[in-house]
């Protein structure tokens, strides 16, 4: 049932419960359940509202419908096994989760990804951020009746997801990050393709901007609703575009740069009033800034040493296998295999460019695993039970700027091959904690834009 229809019911009910005595009429508040499954909810979440007419008197937010035990599951497997789980935290921008987890484990190990890898991570994070913002604004606009905007934005998101697919092999469940590197290098012609697509996305954003930003209906619904004061927002631990819409200039990428964000030139947009409209404006501007970062990163990404072998000896994988069959494996230690397009990581020679030079943490290229005994042993030592990546006992908290705010990973190691404890600080958890605070005092219909601007992602909220 849509909210409008529920409202009609609510009105009818409230007239029923009014006493028709001549002296006193009893006024009672009405409770209205929104969710757990409701078209205006971006996931399964329940909001129990207490209404006085159409005004929200109190609201209780119930979460947990999508709890999958992410943190418990991470404790059961080796470090790299957490990667697919991390995809499914924020499933609109899964790459950022992957890299956030990698960053935490890398800090725990004391290693650093190579420069090229860090650039790749920056580029892919920013593309993910754009897809996330597109989804958030598109869906909120659709709920306010602007269906065209939704279609335009999803169209743009599709182009970006094609880029993601070209790099990672999947659109959503990408599992692209690896401890100490990434799964594969950027494909051929990626830079040109990205530039073209970003131009197209810009056009879409201009169109959407024309449709929404000065649209009377949109402004009326968004301006002055879901307001939160900066002080409150900070106390609630809100971060990301939501906090910046209150005028607080905090962005992890600027405040505590990770990867190579300190080399990028970009602005952190803020708004003034802390309302839904401000959050919309901040997100729109952030997409532009993200595109700026992607373009800079593509322009300055280092090629790195293509052939890292000291003697520059390269051998096709097939030839290496043949030699191995003949028993001529004497020189294999110093030889690099050439990419084989049929196996994972087709740009094999680049493998060392995108992965940290730390054999104790970084998986070898698949060709090495299949092609020579060194690679096989290397693979074995990282994958088999009881071996694996084994950071020394300790703990670390690494924060990255997710699309919704600070995405933190707190990882504790006890020296074994699996994390002792993984804790995610999901950005939208704190915002949802403040949601009831923002809803109270507004009209019931304002719940839709307010909730839309929270950009609740069930995966990371409930884990």
């Amino acid at each position, binding site marked *: 049932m849509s909210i409008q229809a529920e409202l009609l019911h609510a009105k009818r009910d409230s007239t029923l419960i009014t006493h028709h005595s001549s002296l006193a009429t009893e006024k009672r508040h009405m409770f209205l359940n929104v969710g757990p499954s409701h078209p205006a909810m971006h996931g399964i979440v329940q909001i129990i509202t207490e209404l006085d007419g159409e005004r929200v008197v109190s609201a209780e937010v119930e979460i947990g419908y999508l709890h999958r035990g992410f943190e418990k599951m991470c404790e059961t497997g080796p470090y790299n096994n957490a990667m697919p789980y991390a995809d499914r935290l924020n499933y609109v921008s899964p790459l950022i989760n992957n890299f956030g987890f990698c960053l935490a484990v890398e800090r725990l190990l004391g290693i650093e990804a190579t420069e090229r890898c860090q650039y790749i991570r920056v580029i892919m994070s920013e593309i993910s951020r754009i897809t996330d913002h597109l989804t958030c604004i598109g869906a909120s606009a659709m709920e306010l009746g602007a269906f065209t905007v939704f279609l335009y934005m999803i169209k743009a998101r599709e182009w970006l997801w094609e880029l993601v697919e070209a790099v990672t092999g999947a659109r959503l469940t990408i599992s692209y990050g690896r401890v100490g590197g990434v799964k594969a290098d950027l494909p051929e012609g990626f830079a040109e393709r990205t530039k073209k697509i970003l131009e197209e996305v810009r056009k879409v954003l201009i169109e959407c901007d024309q449709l929404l930003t000065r649209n009377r209906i949109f402004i009326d619904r968004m301006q002055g609703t879901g307001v939160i004061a900066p002080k409150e927002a*900070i106390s609630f631990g809100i971060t990301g575009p939501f906090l910046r819409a209150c005028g607080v200039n905090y962005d992890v990428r600027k405040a505590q740069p990770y990867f190579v964000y300190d080399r990028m030139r970009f602005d952190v947009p803020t708004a003034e009033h802390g309302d839904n409209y401000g959050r919309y404006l901040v997100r729109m501007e952030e997409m532009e800034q993200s595109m700026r970062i992607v373009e800079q990163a593509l322009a300055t990404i280092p090629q790195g040493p293509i052939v890292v072998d000291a003697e520059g000896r390269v051998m096709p994988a097939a030839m290496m296998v043949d030699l191995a069959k003949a028993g001529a494996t004497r020189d294999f230690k110093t030889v690099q295999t050439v990419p084989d397009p049929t196996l994972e990581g087709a740009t094999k020679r680049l493998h060392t460019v995108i992965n940290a030079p730390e054999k104790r943490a970084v998986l070898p290229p698949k060709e090495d695993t299949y092609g020579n005994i060194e690679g096989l042993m290397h693979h074995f030592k990282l994958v088999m039970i*009881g071996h694996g990546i084994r950071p*020394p006992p300790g703990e670390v908290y690494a924060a990255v700027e997710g699309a919704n705010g600070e995405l933190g990973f707190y990882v504790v190691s006890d020296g074994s091959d699996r994390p002792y404890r993984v804790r995610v600080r999901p950005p939208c958890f704190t915002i949802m904690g403040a949601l009831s605070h923002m809803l109270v005092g507004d009209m019931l219909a304002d719940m839709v834009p307010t909730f839309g601007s929270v950009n609740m992602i069930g995966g990371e909220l409930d884990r």
Partner: protein
Amino acid sequence: MATEPLPFAETVRDRFPQWVIGAHCYRGDETMILKREGLLEVCRFLRDDPGMAFECLMDLTCVDYLHFGSSLGSAPLMKTPSPLPYFMRPKPTTETWGRMVGEDHRFEVVYHFYSLSRNHRLRLKVPLTEAEATVDSVTGLWQSANWFEREVWDMFGIRFRGHPNLKRILMYEPFDGYPLRKDYPVNRRQPLVGPVN
């Protein structure tokens, strides 16, 4: 351990010597370990002191140290220290990490603070024994603690004294046990509950 600069921990230790158990800096994260009785006092200081100014409680969680050091599960037990540091480039500094409390302190409630105005972070840990798994709630100081503490209660069964609404948040009310405790088996099944139609 005393070689690294610990600006916040030293200040707090000077002010509240009776509450601070220890401090260390591991991988650049400054950590302070605190007795639970002094939590509220120290937290108020951390929030309100202009030199600290931790306006933001970024994260609050808990770690169950029941199987610490022996959590290999199905893996063959390798008690040797992790070989990684010897291969690291650059070599790790002489960072040491330790819990600084005895084995009987099974839980550690972990607070991550961030200061927006001064752009620094601090981790605070409060060790708890299983028998007295209770700590003061900091909801009055940071509102974000409200849901975080509910989650820790839900997942670990740590009680927060003075919390306005300490009930389960991710799991459902009739759920039995605390799923993130180390003695809760990962494959344990519980009956689905819900309204009977």
